[in-house]
């Protein structure tokens, strides 16, 4: 087995070994987006990826404490490239994808946001 395959296997194993610290999430990924200047409408095409994520560090972000920021760690191989259009859903709540803190070919760590 290649080193990258070996690491991917162990990343998957790690997400399973942390048990309920890794929760099931649904990532809605926009595969294309277009803007029509005539109608002022944005059209997107989305695909949904089910994967596991470790969610940490809940902080309230704005001066009036109306924005909650969390950090999500996901398996890069499962989710592929992500963009600012994508949304992450878990516990019946939808979170906007924020800045990517770090992304390797194995693990992606990203900020996620929602209004209270």
């Amino acid at each position, binding site marked *: 087995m290649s080193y990258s395959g070996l690491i991917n296997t162990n990343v998957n194993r790690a997400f399973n070994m942390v048990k309920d610290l890794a929760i099931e999430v649904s990532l809605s990924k*926009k595969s*294309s*987006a277009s*803007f*029509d*200047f005539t109608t*002022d409408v*944005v059209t997107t095409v989305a695909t949904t990826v089910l994967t596991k994520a470790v969610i940490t560090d809940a902080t309230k972000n704005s001066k009036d404490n109306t924005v909650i920021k969390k950090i999500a760690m996901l398996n890069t191989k499962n989710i592929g490239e992500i*963009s600012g259009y994508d949304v992450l859903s878990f516990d019946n709540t939808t979170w906007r994808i924020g800045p990517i803190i770090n992304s390797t070919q194995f693990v992606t760590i990203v900020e996620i946001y929602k209004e209270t």
Partner: protein
Amino acid sequence: MGKYENLEKDVFSIFGSTSWKNENIKTFPVNFIELTPGTEFVRVSVIPSGNGINLTSISGVLIIDIFTSAGNGPRRTSLIADKLDSYLVGKSVSTVSGNSTQFNKSALAYVGLDTVNSALYRATYSIPFNYFGV
């Protein structure tokens, strides 16, 4: 509709026209995330920040960031700016009866490598406008 929406419609009608689409220059507005922008595109910002001659009029600047492939010299930027000139300089647009947006003279500033993607070279095309409402 208010003056800001009418102004936006006037400006966007230029970039939604068949003739501009046939120029094959990818064009996006601000606050739109293009997933595959490529190495050549323009980004349109309408900045209605000036005074108008009455309460329903306003002036401002249309800013168009021109992104081209880095390292290939300024010619492509100049060609795109000239194309923009042919659609904008001295032109008047009206999408709502009685209102109109008039463009004046343009300017082009070479900014340098894009701060987000250094594979792109950015220049800023700007042209003042006056929107007249009734």
